């Protein structure tokens, strides 16, 4: 089913950044034609507050991340998008003065509680960072890292899964002869796809992507965007991006953040063609941020 949304061009839309032609994807459920409420939630956030020391950065965020969909998080710099998704895998716990309050439900439990097993949480929620960060080891060891850490398996199965992850990250052909080379010998775009392979090798449920393409060249970016579209059938993806066109291209749902609050959240096509909030409209049309 190829869903195409044809909206009547509005005044605003002609001023807006033109949404580029979508990549041809089968199963294109661009959020417009489905029943939002009926979809299962992967992550349910309620009233999330976040503090850097005394300073509050997020205010009462409430949002539902749907399973096997791409949710984009957009907004001007400093609006709290990265801070928000970094609450999902509690990576903020590394820093003494960062605190979160509220509820983030994942698989029925509030992951902000002190009972949460962080190691297991991070096995199920993976993260891709803005700067490609391969570990200082071979390509193979990078991808095998998570598998070796959480599971016991024979070398042959490990090899198979590594190969599989690299194939599903659309990088196998480029690295199949370089498996024993250091991870950072690859180009920037390749490194990022390596990091994606590393993240998906352990079959997480969710992939958090924090501006994954901002340090990558356009060709690499296109490859990663294509990859995201293919990955979503197996994973739930939350994508932070400062590139609105990217959000429009690949996501099903979009959340617009501003100064730590979620201003608007809905199907991507609606957000970009007919946003309900004035602030959203101003951001989309490039009036600020």
């Amino acid at each position, binding site marked *: 089913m190829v869903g195409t949304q044809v909206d009547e061009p509005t005044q605003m839309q002609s001023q807006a950044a033109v949404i580029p032609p979508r990549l041809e994807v089968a199963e294109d459920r661009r959020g417009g034609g489905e029943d939002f409420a009926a979809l299962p939630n992967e992550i349910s956030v309620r009233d999330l507050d976040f503090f850097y020391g005394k300073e509050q950065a997020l205010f009462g965020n409430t949002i539902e991340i749907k399973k096997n969909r791409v949710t984009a998080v957009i907004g001007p710099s400093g609006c709290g998008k990265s801070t928000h998704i970094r609450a999902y895998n509690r990576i903020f716990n590394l820093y003494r003065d960062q605190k979160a309050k509220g509820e983030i439900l994942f698989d029925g439990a509030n992951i902000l509680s002190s009972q949460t097993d962080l190691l297991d949480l991070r096995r199920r929620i993976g993260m891709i960072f803005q700067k490609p960060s391969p570990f200082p080891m071979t390509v193979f060891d990078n991808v095998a890292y998570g598998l070796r850490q959480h599971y016991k*398996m024979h070398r042959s199965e490990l090899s198979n899964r590594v190969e599989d992850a690299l194939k*599903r990250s659309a990088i196998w052909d480029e690295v199949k002869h370089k498996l024993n080379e250091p991870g950072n010998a690859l180009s920037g775009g390749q490194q990022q796809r390596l990091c994606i392979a590393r993240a*998906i090798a352990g079959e997480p449920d969710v992939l958090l992507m924090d501006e994954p393409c901002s340090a990558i060249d356009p060709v690499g970016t296109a490859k990663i965007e294509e990859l995201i579209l*293919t990955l979503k059938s197996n994973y739930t993806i939350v994508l932070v991006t400062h590139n609105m066109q990217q959000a429009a291209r690949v996501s099903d749902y979009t959340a617009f953040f501003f100064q730590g609050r979620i201003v608007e959240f809905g199907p991507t096509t609606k957000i970009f063609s007919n946003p309900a909030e004035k602030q959203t409209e101003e951001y989309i049309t490039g009036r600020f941020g």
Partner: protein
Amino acid sequence: MSAVPESTSPPAHLRRRSIGRRKATDLTVKIFSWIGAWFGIIAMGFLVYEVVIRGAVAWNWAFFTQSTPQDVTSTQGGFANAIVGTIVITGVAALMAIPTGFLGGVYLAEFGRNGRVATAVRMIANVVMGVPSIIVGVFAFAVLVKPLQHYSGFAGSVALAFIMLPVMARTTEDILNLVPNELRESGLAMGAARWKVTLGVICKAARGGLITGATLAIVRVAGETAPLLFTALSSPYWMTGLFGPSGFFGGPVANLTKTIYDFSASPYPHFQTLAWGGALLIIVAVLGMNILVRLLFQRGKEW
């Protein structure tokens, strides 16, 4: 769209590594870290404490003004001649090694850079820095003591200079390499001569680091004993003049470290106390200089 294989089913069937075990290992390592750190800190603090306690007793006016006692029953005397001797010997060594090492470092950083000669020099400097100081002492002995048939403070200075030279060169090179290239280029773009740019602009910018490097190199050799064992040896007298049996070039010169060594190994309590006093002096001087240059260096860091 590229054909993408279906993902394999989530590895629920795989055996999981025990999270409990992993956390236990993590905790154990953290505990050992704390124990180890405290152990190390306490041991080091203990060392300084012992020196202070035992050495402070010896510090009096006599310690700093009188020369070393020779009579084993004596309760008089001080380390003054040894202190002066160390200052002179180290000073001469610095005069020889600091400028040479500095220019050598300039060569490595500014001229030779990655050329074959410079790379070889760098490698050799690294090797020389690893040579035990006693071997340097043996070298100075063979060159300056044996042929001339007498010990001399100068031989000690040569040994110390030998140790300082590669240290100074490498330190200079490292510091100069920190200076951004733009500074070099803008200096040269003004039409100034290379040597003026190097000395006037770059070294001025790196002044803090260079002074620190030189000071630390000097302080380091001031505490050395082994190179002086068979060069300057030691002497119960004051250094007198240049030539002649107690002169700098003519005979053994009293110095702090060798005197400490001799006195600490002696069985007489007074001598041992004096040795502790000397040890305290060395620690105070070394740590004091370190703190001082650190304070200087912090300011010198801004380009």
